[in-house]
């Protein structure tokens, strides 16, 4: 038996695959690669695999992690290549290796948030945005697990932010807290709409770029 971890991308069309559908997709691709996923014991055995920090639908990422157990003894060599033959467009396994580090050591994630402005970036947007994102309090409304709306201050979960202007867009390179609690970078757009309505973008795109441990190094 081996515990393995996959590093994979989820982008383009695949960004729209939901968490549960992604699990199903992986469940199907493993038998094709000759790996036998370990199943739970009991009356309705189910395969043991979990996605580390499920990516919200619609966002893309080049650093997704999936943990799973196989019945064979293997260090994961050659697995990435075999899996890639059978995955949907937009999902690509970059590496497969023994899962050593515990998931709780994953502390932060880096994301690129692109704010699109169809009629050009409003004048003075950059200084206003960088002041806004340094505020001590950024309240947004968020659905809780019980489907109720709750107001949350996201400012403490925003660790770092760099801003760049491009053609008709503003790019935020943010580092946010990953778990307990984690921040969905999409919510930054909601904060902008709330505090600086004139800077509300026409569309917001989020791309997860890296997952980090407590020391700021990539978590693998």
């Amino acid at each position, binding site marked *: 038996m081996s515990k393995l971890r996959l590093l994979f991308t989820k982008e383009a*069309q*695949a960004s*729209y695959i939901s968490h*549960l559908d992604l699990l*199903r*997709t992986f*469940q199907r691709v493993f*038998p*094709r690669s000759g790996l036998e996923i370990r199943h739970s014991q009991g009356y*309705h055995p189910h395969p043991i695999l979990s996605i580390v920090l499920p990516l919200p639908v619609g966002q893309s990422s080049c650093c997704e992690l999936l943990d799973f157990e196989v019945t064979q003894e293997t260090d994961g060599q050659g697995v990435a290549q075999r899996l890639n033959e059978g995955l949907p467009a937009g999902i690509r396994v970059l590496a497969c290796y023994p899962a050593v580090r515990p998931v709780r050591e994953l502390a932060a994630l880096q994301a690129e948030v692109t704010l699109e402005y169809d009629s050009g970036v409003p004048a003075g947007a950059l200084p206003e945005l960088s002041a806004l994102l340094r505020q001590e309090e950024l309240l947004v409304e968020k659905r809780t697990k019980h489907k109720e709306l709750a107001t949350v201050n996201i400012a403490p979960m925003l660790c770092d932010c760099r801003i760049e202007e491009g053609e008709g867009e503003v790019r935020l390179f943010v580092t946010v807290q990953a778990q307990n609690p984690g921040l969905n970078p999409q919510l930054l757009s909601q904060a902008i709409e709330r505090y600086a309505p004139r800077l509300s973008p026409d569309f917001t795109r989020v791309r997860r770029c890296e997952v980090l441990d407590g020391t700021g190094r990539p978590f693998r």
Partner: protein
Amino acid sequence: MDKRLERILPRVQKPARYVGGEYNAVIKNKAEVDTRIAFCFPDTYEIGMSNLGMRILYGVMNRMEGVWCERVFAPWGDMEEEMRRTGMPLFALESGDPVGEFDIIAFSVGYEMAFPGILNLLDLSGVPIRTADRTGLTPLVIAGGTAMYNPEPMADFIDVVSLGEGEYVTEELIELHRKARREGWSRRAFLTQAAQIPGLYVPSLYEVDYHEDGTVKAITPKEGAPAQVTKRIVPDLDESYFPVKTIVPSTEIVQDRVMLELFRGCIRGCRFCQAGYVYRPVRNRSSELCARYCVDACDDSGYQEVTLSSLSTSDYPPLTGLCDALEPFCAQRHVNLSLPSLRADNFSMELMQRLAKGRKSGLTFAPEAGTQRLRDVINKNVTQEELLRSCHTAFAGGYNAVKLYFMLGLPTETDEDVLAIADLAARVMHEWREAAPNKNRGVRITVSTSWFVPKPYTAFQWVGQISKEEYERRVALLRDAIKTKTVTYNWHDSETSVIEAVLARGDRKLCKVLETVWRKGARLDAWEEYFSYDRWQEAFAECGVDPSFYANRQRPADEIFPWETISCGVTKAYLRREYEKAAAGVTTPDCRTLCGGCGANRLTGGACRV
């Protein structure tokens, strides 16, 4: 990805349905393609991707050189709204290109309620909905599928109808269209030539005259079109294409498993069943080949569930042998076999033990009618004893749920027949008491009734559907007769059955109704969320069409049916004999016991190998 699409997707439910990119989706180099086909299913992705026919033809077309077949499904209401709001035309999943730019737009039509959806998809593509308003060679609008055996209500909208199994005729049609484009034929010239290919019906080449009472007087072919078009079949299933390597959706669909087709056709001849007649003759796929396809399909897709599919799976002669042969593979790979369409008369302990181990949830039987008399009328040759014995076997084997399907409104049905359904359910309950090893688990018996819809190409094609009031009275009668709490009664009160009855045996006068009802907003009318009976009633009234003329009228023996230009192989004379035997309560043995001479054997040019 298209920018408009990217912006729409976060606003709609289940966006994964609209992006393609699934494993095994076919992507071709446009520079090497001269024929682009948009293969449309007029229902949602989840339904369309569950259709085996669609998967077969997708494979058949894409293995042709220079042909790229892509999939198109109906957008759900929220998606359509967004598309119309942003002016985004209907697009194909593989390339994202607009459907209106394709050479051929093909529809797979399994159900009459999909008709308005076809008009909607054409409109979303920016293609004129009427064949008369399309002037060029492209896009050519074709359609096939079970609901196209009577394409007359859609005659104004479809250029070419492909009848029967599409494996061979689709290729022939594509080649002819390719030639026509290469040589610059007119649209008219192409359609005239297409009509010469066996199995292709070109509605615009037929003129229909009506009597004053609205019935058909004569159907006259024009420009050399044949007087009758006979459906096409694959004579030998072992020779035909099977999609071993097929698309694995990245989102959950209805039939999310390997669909292994064991045979086509059905030996039974239930007199109400259109599929049982139009899919004749019976052709079995060899058990060795089935086993190989099953293993290969699981290997490629990674699915762990396989449906052994057919119209009546327990009638497949080597079924137990096939299950046994697959046993080691299934055990090793955690693959479950599921068997739909079980018959109560040949359900056995042997078979049951081969079903999904561990999961003994429920079994479904369809006695269709409550009394032996009525089961004889419809030729559902299952006796009460057989049904009870099967239930006994199931209960003894640990099953604790049985679903029983019936139809209300079958020809000659009396109140006694209706009440007998309640009695039968009570007897099934009694069997459970006798047989269940562990009564603490309880039992669930579900009785479901649907409303009988007479269909063309069946022994009941002459019969009128009972009125809505009468149907509702019979439902109430049965509801009151079911007293046990362990028996749950579900009835289909959907008014779609009325509309289905109108469209199923409709003629070209309904084209106007379909266009009207679509303009009034009919789209995904197979879905209760979208179906509106009032909208259909308004459309009938506006077009001066009386729906009861189609649905409820008893048709005389000598009436010319609107669909008579089309033959599914089974002769009208045979169906009339079956109709008369039904009236006399005389049964017909299955094809394996005795050939009834239905005429379908002419399609293979010899005796059927049942």
